[in-house]
Structures are given as C-alpha cells and as structure tokens.
C-alpha cells in the first residue's frame, strides 16, 4: 500500500461513542500490519472498567487481531507490526519498560478452543499464581484455586477430583477451567477470543452466565461471531469491517437501531 492509500484509509471516522471518560484500556490511532498488508486501520477505542465490550464483524475484519494487540499476543508473530498507542490504566503497554509476562498477567486471555495444560485440574489453576509469586504457602494457593473455581462455577463439579487430569473434563468444563486459570492471577482485563465457539448450547449458556458475573470484578473484552451472544453478554459493542472500527455503541442500541449502514447490514445478515 502506498502512502496516499494509507492516508485515505486512515481518514475513516468511527460512528457512535468509541471513547469513554474513565477507561481501563485505551487505544489511539492503532494500525496493525502483517508484512506489507495492513490489517487494522487507525483504531481509537476505549474499554470501560468492569464492562463487557463485544467485538463483532465478519471473518477477516481484524477483530481478533485487534484483541491480540491488547496484551501484545501479536509480539509472537514476526511479521506483525503494531503502531499507535495502547494503554492500560494510562500506562503505554508497548513501552520498552513493560514486562510482557507481567502485562499478560494483568490482561489475561481465553482462547477459542479450551487449552488446559496437560496437568491436573488443581495445577492448571495453581500454575499462574505460583509462577507470578502471588503466594508463599500452600494453604494460600489452595484458597486461590478454590476461589477461582468457585467464581467459574466449577468448584462443586471438580472439588473431589482436583488431582485428576484437566483433559478429562468436558469441553464446557475445560473452558471454564481456562477462565479460572486466567482469573486466578487476578487480572484487570480478561480478553476472550470466541470462547464459546467450540461449546454446546448448555456449556455456552454457563460460560455466558459466568461472563456476566465476572464483569463485576473484571473488565472483559470478547470477540464473538454470535450476534445473540454479543447482545446477551455485553454492555458495549464494537463493529469492525475490513480492519476499520465502523461503529461503537451501547449494545442495546447497536442491536435495535445501529447508526451505520454496514453495522445494520452485518447484524441483520445482509453481508457475510
């Protein structure tokens, strides 16, 4: 892409209310490139404290790419370049002084497919607090494990088999275990990349219920392909299209009366 094309693409204006007064995370002028190809164009977006922000859009629109910028997961991709600024509590997360491991403890992530470690249920949850040195005594670790599993609604189901392999759990249980693992280190933000796409409707409902409960303590940003899921779990919704942030607004408004034609077309199933 030449410079004039780049400038033209970046002149796009987001509809709605992408900015907030007192955000947990802020992105300004974020561009993401994979080699020569630009995947994200000039995104200004705030993520509110203790809010669930849903990111929706067609496949390839850049929503997952953008989500991965929020805890620098894209650092692991050599050809990926992120420009602009992204801050957590006012602090630039791309600053050289930032310890990426510590950042990812503050901004946790749950992936599309449940990915428990090939260890016991207990060890999956205990791993984070242990490597981050959050506890000195076993009794404290036990407490964190229990509390995290309780918060994820998994405690009653697994308390009698904590030493058994996590891989023996059902898909829905594994995903809730991954969420328990993410929150065990008490993050400020939890990023979720299509967390229910591999789950059946019952497990999906359980995880959605969990998301609502967790939002009381954590800031959550979720990428989802399910319109109904976005409508059910989030307070704000951001619509991405071809790498641009088209519209951001209250979820209730986005799903009943969106402002932008592209948002309307996507959520009513007029473009794929």
């Amino acid at each position, binding site marked *: 892409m030449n410079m004039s094309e780049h400038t033209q693409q970046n002149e796009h204006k987001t*509809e709605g209310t992408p900015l907030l007064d007192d955000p947990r995370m802020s992105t300004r002028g974020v561009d993401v490139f994979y080699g020569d190809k630009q995947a994200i164009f000039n995104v200004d977006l705030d993520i509110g404290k203790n809010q669930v922000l849903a990111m929706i859009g067609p496949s390839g629109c850049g929503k997952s790419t953008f989500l991965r910028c929020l805890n620098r997961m894209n650092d692991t991709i050599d050809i990926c370049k992120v420009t602009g600024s992204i801050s957590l509590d006012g602090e630039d997360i791309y600053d050289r002084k930032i310890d990426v491991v510590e950042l990812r403890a503050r901004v946790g992530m749950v992936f599309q497919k449940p990915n428990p470690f090939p260890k016991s249920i207990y060890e999956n949850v205990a791993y984070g607090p242990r490597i981050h040195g959050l506890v000195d005594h076993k009794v404290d670790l036990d407490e964190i494990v229990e509390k995290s599993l309780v918060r994820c609604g998994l405690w009653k189901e697994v308390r009698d088999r904590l030493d058994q392999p996590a891989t023996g759990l059902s898909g829905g249980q594994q995903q809730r275990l991954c969420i328990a693992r993410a929150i065990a280190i008490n993050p400020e933000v939890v990023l979720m990349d299509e967390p229910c796409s591999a789950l059946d409707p019952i497990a999906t409902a359980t995880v959605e219920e969990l998301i609502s409960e967790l939002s009381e303590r954590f800031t959550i940003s979720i990428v989802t392909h399910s*319109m*109904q899921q976005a*409508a059910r779990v989030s307070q704000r919704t951001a619509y991405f299209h071809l790498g641009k942030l088209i519209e951001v607004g209250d979820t209730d408004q986005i*799903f*009943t*009366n*969106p*402002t*932008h*034609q592209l*948002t*309307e*077309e996507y*959520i*009513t*199933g*007029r*473009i*794929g």
Partner: protein
Amino acid sequence: MSEKKTIIGTHISKQFDQELEDIRERVLQMGGLVEEQFGRVMTALMDGDADQAALVAAEDYKINQFEMEIDEECVLILARRQPTASDLRLVVAVTKCIRDLERIGDETERMARMIQNSIEIESPENYYKGFLAAGESIRKLLQSTLDCFARMDVMSAVKQMREAYIIDREFHSMTKQLVDRMKKDPESITSALDMMWATRCLEKVGDHCVNILENVVYSVKGQDVRHQHLDEVEETVKQS
C-alpha cells in the same frame, strides 16, 4: 450521520427475505380487508341497508383469522431468525399493527350492529350526514395509513398523524352537538346515544390509525414516538 437504507430483500438467507416479505404482504392484505369492511359499513349506513351491515358484522372473523395467522408467523420468525435492528423493528411493528387492525375490525363490527338497530330511519343519508362525513375522513385516514405502512413512508406518516389530530377535534364538536340535541329534544336521546356510540367507534378507529403510523416511524427510524406532541414527533423524525 450516515443514511441507512432498509431493504427487506437483501439478506444472505433468501428464505428470511421471503418470510419478512410474507408478513408485510399479509398485513397489507389484512389492511385491505379492514378497509373494505369499513367502507361497506359506511355504504350500508348511507343506503339504510341492514342486510349489508349484518353481512359485514358476520365477516369480522376473517380479520381475526388474519391476526392470528400473522401473529404465528411473527413468533416463528422470532424463534427461527432472532432478527435484529430493522428486521426486529419490522417484526415488532407488525405484531402491534395487526392488533390495531383487528381492533379497527371490532369497531367496524360494532358500528354494523348499531346500524342494524336504527335502520328504520327514513332518508338515512340526511339523518347521518355529519357522521358520514366524519366516516369518510376516517376512511381516507385508514387508506393513507395503510399506504404509509406499505411504503414505510415516515414523512407521510407524520402528515397523517396531523390529519388524525384535526379529525379528532371534529369528533369533540360532534359529541357536543349531540349532547345539545339531547338537551333540546329528549325524544331524540335514544337515537343520539346510538350516534354517540358510533362516533366513539370512529374516533377509536382514528386512534388505531395513529398507533399504526407511530409503528411505521418506529420500524423505519427506530424511534419510539408514542405519547409525544406532534411537533416533537416531526422533530424526532427529521433528526434521526
């Protein structure tokens, strides 16, 4: 703010297009029947034709049938498609509009039954002169309302709301005249009361038309303009 276009027939799922188009068409068919029934009642009144009035009253079930069928189609769309944005608003507006159309059918049936009771009057076209004029205004309002729904024309909807407001004021003066007549000529009380009820029916038909017009605005603009002053409605529609 970007201007949004709402076109039913552009979904990826052609079947969904068809389902939405079907309910829209069915509402228009139902509206056509309601309009026809209303017109027949007015004609029966003008001609003093009790048989025609009886026929209209007997055929109200057809309107009820429409309401139940369209309602069921809407429920199925909600269950199958989980519509959003303009699609959701259209389905919600349809469920409300058919309720209003069904109520217009009920008022029409009520008028038909009243006509049957007072059909022995000679030269009914003279006796019912004021009422028939108001009935004609309401018939035109109903027709325009259905046109607004068919075209989803918001500006015309606001115009018709104004029209309805003017007609509504005429009803107040008609009611006042009937009360005066009853005071002056107590023998006319029975017939004047009949007329009062019939006038009330017409007034309600006008109110249901306004409800439908408000739903046209909601469906197209996503703005709830119920219980707003007409100037505010106009302002809301222009701004959105």
